[in-house]
C-alpha cells in the first residue's frame, strides 16, 4: 500500500502533501478543543499498537502474507481526528525508522491511509451503524463496509494521482486503473475480514472501548455534515473506480489519438497476446471497458498464481511440514 518515491511527479507530491498537512493540522486543531492532555498517551499508544499489529501475519498461502492496515480500526477506537493522527504517526515512523514508503510521497500515503482510512472510515462506520438496532452488529457490519470501501477508494485516488503525474498518452491509464482496483478489491476483502475479526473480539471482551460513553471516540465525534461529506467522498471515489473503465472509452479522445499514433507500430510485437482483446466481437465498442476490467482480473490472478508457484518452490516451511508428516 505504501507509495514509494518515483511513483508520483513533484507537483502531485506537493499537492498531496499540502492536503495531508491541512488534514493533519485540522485534526490537531479539533483535538485541542477537547481533552488535550489525554491525547498524547492515548494516540501514541494506539499508534504503537497499530504498528505492532501490522507485524502479525495473516497467511494467504503465498510468500507475502497479509497484514492489518488499521486506518478504520484507529478511527473506530480513537475517533476520526486522533485516529488520523495515530495512522499518520505510524506512517512517519515507518518512513524515518524503516525507510518504508517515500519521503516526498509521505503526504500521499497520509492521504490514502490516515485521511481516507480514519476520517472517511469513521464517517462510514457511524453512518452504517444507524441502520442496525443492535449496536454490536452495526459496529461489525460498519467495520466491514468501511474497510473495503476505504481501501478501494485509496487505490482509486492513487490511480488519479498516478495519472496526473504522467503526461497524457504515456500509456493507457484505464488499464492500470483496472489492475490497481482489482488488486485492491482483494486487499480490501482481507482488510475487512481482519478488521471485523478484531472488532468482534474487542466487542466480546471490552465493548465499552467501541460502543460505550467512556470510549475515546465519543469525545471527538464528527458533525453530521462532515460525516456525510467524508463518507460521500469515499463512496464517490469507489464508484469512480468501477465506472472509469467504461467512462473513458466514451469521452477520452486524447488518449485514443495518442494510442493510435504512439502504439500503432507496437501492436504486432511479440507481446500482443493481450493486446488484441478488443478485436474479439463481444469485447468491442462499448464492451471495451468491461474487457479492460476482465484483463485486469486475469492479470491479477496470473500474478497471484505465479507468486503461489514461486512461494511453494522456495518456502522452507513447506519442507519442514512435509518432513514432519513423514
Amino acid at each position, binding site marked *: 500500500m505504501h507509495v514509494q518515491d518515483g511513483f508520483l511527479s513533484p507537483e502531485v507530491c506537493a499537492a498531496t502533501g499540502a492536503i495531508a498537512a491541512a488534514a493533519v493540522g485540522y485534526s490537531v486543531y479539533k483535538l485541542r478543543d477537547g481533552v488535550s492532555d489525554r491525547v498524547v*498517551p492515548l494516540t501514541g499508544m494506539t499508534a504503537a*499498537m497499530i504498528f505492532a499489529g501490522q507485524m502479525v501475519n495473516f497467511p494467504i498461502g503465498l510468500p507475502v502474507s497479509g497484514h492489518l492496515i488499521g486506518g478504520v480500526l484507529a478511527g473506530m477506537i480513537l475517533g476520526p481526528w486522533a485516529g488520523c493522527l495515530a495512522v499518520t504517526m505510524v506512517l512517519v515512523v515507518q518512513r524515518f525508522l524503516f*525507510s518504508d514508503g517515500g519521503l516526498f510521497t509521505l503526504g500521499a500515503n497520509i492521504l490514502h491511509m490516515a485521511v481516507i482510512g480514519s476520517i472517511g472510515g469513521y464517517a462510514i462506520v457511524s453512518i452504517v451503524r444507524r441502520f442496525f438496532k443492535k449496536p454490536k452488529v452495526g459496529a461489525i457490519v460498519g467495520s466491514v463496509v468501511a474497510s473495503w470501501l476505504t481501501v478501494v477508494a485509496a487505490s482509486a485516488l492513487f490511480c488519479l494521482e498516478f495519472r496526473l503525474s504522467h503526461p497524457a498518452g504515456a*500509456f493507457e491509464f484505464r488499464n492500470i486503473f483496472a489492475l490497481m482496483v482489482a488488486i485492491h478489491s482483494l486487499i480490501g476483502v482481507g482488510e475487512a*475480514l481482519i478488521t471485523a475479526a478484531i472488532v468482534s473480539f474487542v466487542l466480546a*471482551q471490552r465493548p465499552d472501548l467501541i460502543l460505550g460513553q467512556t470510549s475515546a471516540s465519543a469525545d471527538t465525534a464528527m458533525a453530521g455534515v462532515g460525516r456525510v461529506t467524508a463518507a460521500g467522498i469515499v463512496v464517490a471515489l469507489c464508484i469512480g473506480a468501477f465506472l472509469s473503465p467504461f467512462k473513458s472509452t466514451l469521452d477520452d479522445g486524447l488518449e485514443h489519438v495518442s494510442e493510435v499514433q504512439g502504439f500503432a507500430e507496437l501492436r504486432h510485437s511479440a*507481446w500482443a497476446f493481450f493486446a488484441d482483446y478488443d478485436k474479439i466481437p463481444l469485447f468491442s465498442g462499448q464492451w471495451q471497458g468491461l474487457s479492460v476490467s476482465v484483463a485486469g482480473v486475469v492479470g491479477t490472478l496470473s*500474478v497471484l498464481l505465479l507468486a503461489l508457484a514461486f512461494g511453494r518452490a522456495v518456502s522452507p516451511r513447506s519442507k519442514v511440514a512435509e518432513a514432519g508428516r513423514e
Partner: protein
Amino acid sequence: MIPVVNDSLARGPAARSPGYRLSPTLALGLSVAAITLGMLLPPTHLPSHAALVCVLLAALSLARVPFGMVARRLAIFLGFALLFAVSVPLSQGFRGGWEIAQGILFRGVESFLSGLWLVSVVPFDRLLATLRRLGVPTILVAILAFMYRFLFVLWKELDTMRAARRARTFDQAGLIFRWRNSAQMIGMLLIRSLGRSERVYGAMCARGWDGTVRTLDE
C-alpha cells in the same frame, strides 16, 4: 517475518560510526538531496542512477551498517517495488510502460537506501528534536516520541503472545483458525495497550503532566 526487535536499525546507529558526528539537520538535508537528485535524473539513464546507488551504498558502508542487513531489507523492498513496477507494463499488455517501471524502480531504491542511511547516522530522538526545530507542531513530536518509546514495549509483548501461541498450536492449524487467532492477538494487544495508556496517563498526571511538552534542551 523480520525479527524487528533484534534489528540494529531499530536500536539506533552504532556510536562509533563516522556519520554519527554529522549534525542531524545536515544528514536530513543530504538524504532529501539524494532523493531529489534521483527524481531529477532521467528515469531510463542507467549509468547516472547506478552511480547514485553506488554512492548511497558507499555512504551506508561508511556508516558501518552491516551489509547483510542492507541486502536482506533491500531484497524485501525490491520484491514489492518490482511487483508494482511490472504492473504498469502488465496492464498495458506489455506494449509499453517500461520506462515508467524503470523510473519507479530506480527512484524507489534510491529513496529506500537514503532513508536507511539517515536512520543509521541519526538516532531517532535527535531526529525528533530536529523535526521540532524545523517547525513541526510540538504535539505531533510528543506523540511520535511517545509512540517510539512504547513501540518496543508492545513488540516485546507481541513476541510473548506469539511464543504462547506457537506453544499451543505448533503453527499447524488451518487457515481460518490462524486468521481468527491472529486477529484475536491484535485485539488482545489493543485492549492491553489501551489499558496501559490509561496507567501511563495516570503516572504522567502524578508527575505533573498538564498537556504541555517540555524538553531538556529548552
